[in-house]
């Protein structure tokens, strides 16, 4: 005995989501069936609306309803600073700090040949265009310290070096308020590498 066809299809759809296995997909589908028709309609409309209205900002490639996005049009922002990140989620994380007042540029990924992503699949050309057109003084690379992140940083630094612009990369080390003894050894080794004179 299998689930009746429409239900099976719904479960399959949920199962396509990242991190969702067959059990979770079943639970979601059953929850969906338990909702009232109005609630399901709202849900369906929300999905469609998000898909329709959310797009990449034509300047910084951040996901936004507006184009250019809220950050790019904000007059209070320091236009001389561009912080390069891999993903819109990184923009949100940096915005949470409230410390950064410059603009962003979202690469929409990192260089990873295994996933078929090279510089041409990223918004690198657009970044170069912005640097050429606008009066940018510093590029801050806020990119994860992974193999792919490091390769992307190396690629960008090679590309931007001839432009003669100041380029920095955010520091890596111990989480604030954490205990040295609980830090994993790889993080600690990297923190040692990046030590600073005081």
């Amino acid at each position, binding site marked *: 005995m299998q689930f009746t066809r429409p239900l099976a299809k719904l479960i399959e759809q949920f199962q396509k989501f990242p991190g969702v296995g067959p059990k979770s997909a079943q639970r979601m589908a059953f929850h969906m069936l338990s909702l009232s028709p109005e609630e399901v309609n709202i849900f369906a409309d929300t999905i469609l609306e998000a898909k329709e209205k959310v797009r990449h900002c034509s300047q910084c490639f951040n996901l936004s309803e507006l184009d250019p996005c809220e950050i790019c049009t904000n007059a209070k922002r320091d236009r001389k600073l561009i912080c390069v990140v891999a993903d819109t989620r990184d923009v949100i994380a940096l915005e949470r700090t409230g410390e950064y007042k410059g603009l962003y540029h979202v690469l929409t990924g990192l260089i990873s040949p295994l996933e078929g992503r090279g510089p041409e699949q990223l918004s690198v050309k657009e970044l170069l265009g912005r640097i050429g057109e606008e009066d940018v003084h510093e590029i801050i690379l806020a990119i994860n310290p992974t193999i792919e992140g490091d*390769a992307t940083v190396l690629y960008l630094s*090679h590309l931007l070096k001839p432009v003669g612009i100041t380029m920095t990369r955010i520091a890596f080390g111990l989480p604030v308020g954490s205990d040295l003894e609980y830090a994993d*050894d790889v993080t600690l*080794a990297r923190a040692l590498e990046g030590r600073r004179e005081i």
Partner: protein
Amino acid sequence: MHIHSIHLKNFRNYQEQVLELQPGKTILIGENAQGKSNLLEAIEVASLGKSSRTGNDQDLIAWQQAKMIIEVAYEKGGFAETVGVSLAKPTAGKGARLERKIHVNGVAQNSVRGLLGRLVCVSFTTEDLNLLRGGPSYRRNWIDDIICRIRPIYHEDLSAYQKVVTQRNKLLKTLFEKGKITVTDQDELLAWDKQLARFGAKIIKERLKLLQDILPIAEGFQRHLSGQKEALQADYVFQAAKQAGASDPDDAEDSAESAQEDQPKSVSVSTLAKAEPAEVASILLTLLKQKRSAEIGRKQTLLGPHRDDITFSLNNAQASAFASQGQQRSLVLSFKLAELTLLSQALDEPPVLLLDDVLAELDLVRQGLLMSAVKQDLQTIITTTHLSKFEPEWLAGAKVFQVNQGQIANFVEMKDGAPAGSLRG
């Protein structure tokens, strides 16, 4: 350090076996293919998380069984510890990979790295002649495994490097299939070259440091065995070509300039060890530039520490080519004893020594040198087919077990009056 007990379940030809060991010498006697080496292999898996006998972990699980378990209880630095490794065949619908679980003192570990540096063993097998005669991978693995036991974080460096190679290979393959290479492609490849050089230089520096530590110790043992001073040197060979010719360390600089397509660049370890990681990285970058078109043609990364080699020379003659059989055996024994010495120093206590069928191959002088190393408080587990090949000294105070068809039992005196009386001395 010594092992108290080993518990095996569905490991190779063992169904269920508990073996209690004493700190000194243990001899496992049995016919061929009864499970002597399998027991030592189990200890190796508990120590390094992998077996040197097979690249396929599936082989470790007994025929038609779903799951194998190895548990080893040992004493380290005066404290009791346990390590456990289990491998289970995947249940239906969960992919094809074996499910591996690792425990240290009952705590689950999420990677093999958790095991490294815990139960530390040095194993000496007949395969070890490959250190001189075998392909480059034997020498690389030998060195990498020693470093992993001294500095477990090195395992992380190796896997980071491996990830770079995988990504880079995929890129080379994509470029090959694309046919033409744009400026963007070149720049991307350069970024991966730099990654390879950075992580590669880290690995090479660690290997050089280890070689610098181990060579003088091995030279000492070699002098003891041969009765004369023979200078033991090593060259680090970038990009292993099929036949790495004998290389004179003195003209390594000259050959660097004229590095041909298939001519490896070899630099003496003592010279290269002085170089900064950035210098080693720039050597790799230069070599990568020379190899670029060949790499795209072959769709893979052709040089870097995953293909490098180390050549050893005695009195300036390459050991694998010019040393006699006897010299080679002595040299391998010297290397293994140097490994034992180095690990003892790093651990502040001797590791466990595993001798798989090698004693019978050693002549009296070499057995004697090994004996003098074993005499200290060193737990030694020895496998053999016949007790008669041993010097009596080996048998004194040794506990002897009989291995028969995947079962281990106390040794029973043989009919022909073997020296059973002295066994439990």
